[in-house]
Structure formats: structure tokens, C-alpha cells
């Protein structure tokens, strides 16, 4: 039994079957309850735990259908349209749901009805069960008007008027009811009577292509897992082919016997339906998971979903497309390599350069994921015959150095960086680069110098601030030339 503080007293918020048989109902004060049943056990109610548990439950029961949502306050709503045959028909499905819930130690009431609201009413206010369209209507008509979940005052008003059952309301014209109880009242009535349906909003948007494999014997071996994934990929490929699509992301779901769910997603740069390549990506990804896939006592269901699909443009079509660079259609296809490296090292590791057209060095170019869409601006063309004016390697942020320079804007003669003193042999500058004042008022103007020390190493230094400023100038090293 769970208790929580409410209106100045500890009151029961939830009671198990035994407690309810003893007449202990939610809302009763703990002191009263203890007076009636001295042996009762009470724990503080932790709504956060409930929530987390329901979410775990949601993931686990996602094995029955991807169209699953929380049904407040403590229910789950599964849209099983088109799923039941996988579980031996509706009766078989309900049985399996019940068995699963029982195994988790839950007390449940299940209802299967043509519409979600009818099912909700029958589960919460009836005795549950499996209903066809006509049966559902009859069963709902027999329910108390509380099943409409109206405002308590409205429910009382209905009862006072002698309208105790849903059937009493159904037999009356709807217009006066709407006038008395609000415009959405007839709508509500229609929904629980299965005359109107509302779509449930699934916890995760269902992917366009889903293939499941339920396993009689739970599997634990990597080889078995890969074999099942391979089978699912083959089915997925057939689906993609038939629809002229390719997948850009593939998600494998692993349902453990104990209800834990693990999802692993691989992405590809271009839409693909190459089952062997995707399986290879999964293999890489599974081997590189920070927390390895733990089968526990085994996985009893695997699902392969394709959350991201795109029309698969054949190679021939691509030849006509323009463009340059890494994904240049005229260069051999680099995408498989990018996919493999990304699966192994993560998206942040496989990068390309993008020019952004800013004059501020650290914003002039950025490194972006190799598969990230979007083109940068053209790269600035270096002035002919001039040596490189920008370094090959850049420090972000710039590193402070101690420098000796001629005031006010001479280049450094000597600077110390990482405890090594460099004597400057050649220098060029300053190249004045103003801060982007529209981004930050505090960005100060920088004077950049290209310098070469006596050993031939070339550095990009800058001075921020002027000699004579209150703060004085500070020197930084921003990059290294080859």
C-alpha cells in the first residue's frame, strides 16, 4: 500500500488487492486505515518511480506493437491493428499480454475493443475482456456513466436525473445533452460507444517499415543474433525494393526475456537497401558499443525498423547530378567507407571541412560530420605566389604565449610557448582582423603575424589589445604552418 501527504494527512494513494478486500480505498487517511487493519504495510508514494516503471513497461510491451502509448494515469494503450495474427489471433495476443504482465507481478485488467476509448472504458470501469463491435457497444451501454470520466459534478447531476448507465444516455437525443454538459459531450459518448475513433499518439512515432522476429527459444550468442538480424534485413530489403525506397537509418530492437529493451541504430549517408552492408554496419556498431549488448537470459524478440527512408536514386541518375567534393558523383563511392567509420567511431569522428565565409579565423571554416547535409560557401582562393596566409593546424581556443615585441604594432622578436623560447627570424604582419561586433561586444580586434623561428618553424601569432590599453596587449598562438 502506498501513502502520500494530501490535505494535511497521510492518505492512501494506492492499495493492492488484499488491502482493497479489507475495504481500504485510495483517499482514506492512513490513521483510519491503521485503525481498521493494524497489520497493514505502508510505503511513501514516489510518483517518479511509477513514471519510470511505466516507461520501462512501455518499452517492453512495445514488442507487441510499435503503436503504443501511455494511457494516463496508469495504463498502456496498444493499437494492435494488423498485429494480432503474429500472436495467434486476438485471443492469443491477449493471453500473451496477460502472461507477460503476470510474470512482471502486475495486476492488470485487459480490454480489447474496436476503438481505444471503448477499450479504456471497458478496462477501467468494466471487467475487461475481448469485444467485437456489437459486443463492445452492449458492454459499454451497461457501464456506469462514470465511464465517461466527466467532471464529478456532472456525473452527480446525471445520476440525480436518473441517468445511471451509458445506455440511458445513448437512448436520449444528443442535442439537449450537449446543451447541458458541453459541446464535446456527444463526442465523448460516441467515442466510448465505438461510433467514433481517435488515433492514439504513439510513444515513438512508428517507423514506416518494421519487421519482427519472435523467438521460441531466447538467443544469447552473437552468431545467432546476427543470423536473425540478417533474416530481418532480407525481409526489410524486399519491402524497400517493392516501395522503391532505401533506408538511411536502421534500428534494431532487442527485447530481453526480463523485459529490458535495447535499441541500436546505424545510419548511412545515402539511402541503401544493401542488406549485407547494413549487417556489416550493425556488426561494427555492436562491437563498438560503449555498454555492450547484454543478452542476460536471452533475447526473445528482435525487431528491425527503418525509421528513415528516402527514395533510392539509382547510380545512373546520380551521374547526371552536379556537385563536387567528397560525394562527387564522378568520384568512386566513398559513402560505404564513411558509414563503416561512422559506425565504428561515432559521428563526431568522421568529418569534412566546410567553409563558412566568416573573416574570423575560428569561424571561417568548421569541421562537420561527413554525412551532414548542406554545402558551405566556396573556399577562398589563395593569392598566387604568396605563401600560405592561414595555418594548416589551428588551436581552438588560441593558446597564450609570452612575447617580446616592438610597440606599438611591431612583430614579436621572441616568444615563449610551452616553456620553449623561440627566436623570430622572419615575420610578416600585422594582418588586422576585427572581432565580430554583432556577435559579441567583448571580442577585440586582433593583429596577426606570420613568424618563422630560427629553426624554420612557422607560427601564426596574434596580439589582442594595444600597448597603452588599460588591459595591455596579450599575445596568443593560433596556428601552425607546415
Amino acid at each position, binding site marked *: 500500500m502506498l501513502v502520500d501527504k494530501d490535505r494535511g494527512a497521510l492518505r492512501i494513494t494506492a492499495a493492492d488487492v488484499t488491502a482493497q478486500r479489507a475495504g481500504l480505498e485510495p483517499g482514506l487517511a492512513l490513521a483510519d486505515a491503521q485503525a481498521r487493519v493494524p497489520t497493514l504495510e505502508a510505503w511513501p508514494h514516489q510518483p517518479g518511480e511509477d513514471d519510470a516503471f511505466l516507461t520501462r513497461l512501455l518499452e517492453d510491451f512495445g514488442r507487441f506493437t510499435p503503436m503504443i502509448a501511455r494511457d494516463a494515469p496508469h495504463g498502456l494503450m496498444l493499437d494492435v491493428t494488423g498485429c494480432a495474427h503474429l500472436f495467434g489471433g486476438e485471443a492469443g495476443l491477449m493471453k500473451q499480454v496477460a502472461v507477460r504482465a503476470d510474470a512482471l507481478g502486475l495486476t492488470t485488467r485487459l480490454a480489447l475493443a474496436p476503438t481505444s476509448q471503448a477499450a479504456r472504458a471497458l478496462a477501467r470501469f468494466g471487467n475487461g475482456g475481448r469485444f467485437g463491435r456489437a459486443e463492445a457497444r452492449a458492454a459499454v451501454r451497461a457501464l456506469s456513466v462514470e465511464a465517461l470520466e466527466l467532471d464529478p459534478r456532472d456525473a452527480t447531476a446525471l445520476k440525480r436525473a436518473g441517468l445511471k448507465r451509458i445506455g440511458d444516455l445513448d437512448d436520449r437525443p444528443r442535442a439537449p445533452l450537449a446543451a447541458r454538459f458541453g459541446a464535446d459531450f456527444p463526442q465523448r459518448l460516441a467515442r466510448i460507444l465505438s461510433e467514433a475513433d481517435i488515433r492514439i499518439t504513439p510513444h515513438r512515432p512508428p517507423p514506416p517499415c518494421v519487421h519482427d522476429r519472435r523467438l521460441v527459444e531466447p538467443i544469447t550468442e552473437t552468431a545467432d543474433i546476427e543470423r536473425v538480424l540478417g533474416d530481418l534485413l532480407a525481409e526489410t530489403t524486399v519491402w524497400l525494393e517493392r516501395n522503391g525506397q532505401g533506408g538511411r537509418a536502421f534500428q534494431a530492437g532487442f527485447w530481453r526475456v526480463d523485459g529490458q529493451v535495447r535499441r541500436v541504430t546505424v545510419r548511412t549517408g545515402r539511402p541503401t537497401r544493401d542488406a549485407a552492408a547494413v549487417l556489416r554496419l550493425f556488426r561494427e556498431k555492436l562491437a563498438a558499443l560503449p555498454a555492450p549488448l547484454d543478452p542476460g537470459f536471452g533475447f526473445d524478440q528482435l525487431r528491425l525498423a527503418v525509421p528513415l527512408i528516402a527514395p533510392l536514386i539509382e547510380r545512373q541518375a546520380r551521374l547526371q547530378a552536379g556537385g563536387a567534393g*567528397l560525394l562527387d558523383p564522378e*568520384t*568512386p563511392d566513398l559513402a560505404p567507407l564513411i558509414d563503416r567509420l561512422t559506425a565504428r567511431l561515432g559521428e563526431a569522428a568522421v*568529418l569534412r571541412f566546410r567553409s563558412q565565409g566568416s573573416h574570423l579565423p575560428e569561424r571561417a571554416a568548421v569541421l562537420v560530420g561527413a554525412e551532414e547535409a548542406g554545402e558551405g560557401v566556396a*573556399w577562398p582562393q589563395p593569392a598566387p605566389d604568396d605563401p600560405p596566409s592561414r595555418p594548416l593546424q589551428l588551436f581552438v581556443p588560441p593558446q597564450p604565449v609570452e612575447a617580446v615585441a616592438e610597440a606599438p604594432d611591431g612583430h614579436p622578436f621572441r616568444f615563449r610557448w610551452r616553456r620553449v623560447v623561440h627566436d623570430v*627570424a622572419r615575420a610578416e604582419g600585422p594582418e588586422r582582423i576585427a572581432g565580430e561586433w554583432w556577435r559579441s561586444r567583448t571580442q577585440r580586434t586582433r593583429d596577426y603575424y606570420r613568424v618563422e623561428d630560427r629553426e*624554420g618553424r612557422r607560427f601564426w601569432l596574434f596580439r589582442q589589445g594595444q600597448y597603452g590599453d588599460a588591459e595591455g596587449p596579450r599575445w596568443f598562438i593560433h596556428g601552425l604552418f607546415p
Partner: protein
Amino acid sequence: MRNKLASSDQLEALRALAPALAATSGHDVGGGRFATGLASLDDHLGGGLGAASLHDLYAGAGGDAPAALGFALGLAWRAAQATGERRPLIWGLDEGSRREIGRPYGPGLAELGLDPERVLLVEVRDAAALLGVGEEALASPAVGAVVLGAWGESKVFSLTASRRLAMAARTAGRTLMLVRAGADPTPGAAETRWRVRAASSAPLEAGAPGHPAVEAALIRHRGGVAPRTWIMEWDREQRSFIAPPPLSGGLVSRPADRAGHASAPGEGLRRAG
């Protein structure tokens, strides 16, 4: 009978491997060559560096790492060009390198005449992952050449690892440049081994630093070519290594140049940090 069959299969496999084995252990370096552009170097090596080979580059000191990477990128670019198609470079860099010399900067590549759009950068944590990137990249037919940059000593760079990379390069017919800084040369299966240092550039007017210059010392060649040292410049327009201008070319950096453009430290000198 079965045994015999198996052994004849193995023999067949061995025969297939033989040419590759010969290449990694013997003197014959097949798979074509690419020229560096510097005539004296290309002549010395009999036409350039092996295109289907591993080449080890060691930065003379930590501070020479950018020079060594620049040298490697220039060579790799030329190797990729030599494959005949616009194939991209794969540039792998470990965390140590990024910490010591910063991250690769696109405009800097463009300033060397190397199109940043044709470079794929792979940032890895350690040497083991770096070698993995090398093998993976060589397995892709789309790759033009591979440059790997590593910082510091690591047991990962074993003779076995070197042989694997050399074999992968050989099989792929592509060039792999392994650039190591802060490390002493270790035995390996590379076709050539270099020690690379930054070289003083030929100054421009007003004493400005000139074009990228590098001192590359061939310290070992599997074909038995004699060690030698070259100083060269990188020519952006030709994307080629060239001999430095005669007047300034030389092993000795010339501090005398300094007087030409900068007055001696004097009154106006201030210290700041």
C-alpha cells in the same frame, strides 16, 4: 586424401600470397611509383616513391610535426592524383596530435592548394584506432591515399602492425603515409623511412616568411637506396615539391636575414604575455 587436398589448397593460397610477401620482405617494389616533383629526389629513388606502399615519416622533433604532416599531405595528394581519378584523401589524426598541434584547418589546406572538399578527416582517440582507420580506408576502392598522424611512443606500432599496413597498402595499390611525432623510429615494413624537419624558408620582400620548406632525410629504404637529405619547397600552383630558390637554399638557416627587415631590439621593445 582429405589431408592432401587441404595441403594443396594451402599451397595454392601460399602461391597467391607469394608476390605480396616478396614485396613486403624483398627488394622489388611493384605497384608503380609517383614522383615528388623534386628531380634530384625522384632520380635518386628511381622515379619516386612506391605508390602501393607504406611510408614512415618521423618528425625530427615535436615542433617539426606540422612540417612532417605538410610533407606527408603533399606526397599523399600527388599519390592520389597519380591514381588517375579525383579520389579523396583520408586523413586520420589521433588525440595526442590534436592536443599538441591543434586541429586541421580547412583554409590552411586550401592555401597549400589542396582542396579541403576532397579530404575526409577522421579523428580518433588512440594509435590502435588510427591503425584501424588506415586499414579500413585502404579497403575502400574510392580512397586516393591515406595520411595517418600519431603523437608519442606507443607499443601499437609494432613490426606486425607495420607489416599489416604495408600489406594493406600493397593489396589496395594505394599509398599510406604514417607520420609520427615525439617518437623514435622503430623497425617496420615501410618502403621508405624519413626524418622530416621544418626548414628555413626563402624570405620574401621585407623579410616575410616564404613558402613552406621542409628538410627531408631518407634514413632507410627497403630497396637499399642510399640515405640522403633534401631541402625542398612546396609549390601550391603545381602541387609539387620543387628545389628552393638557389640563393636561399641551404642547410643552414641564416639569422643574418633578420637584420634586413627588423631593427635590432631596442627602445620600443615591450614584453607582454
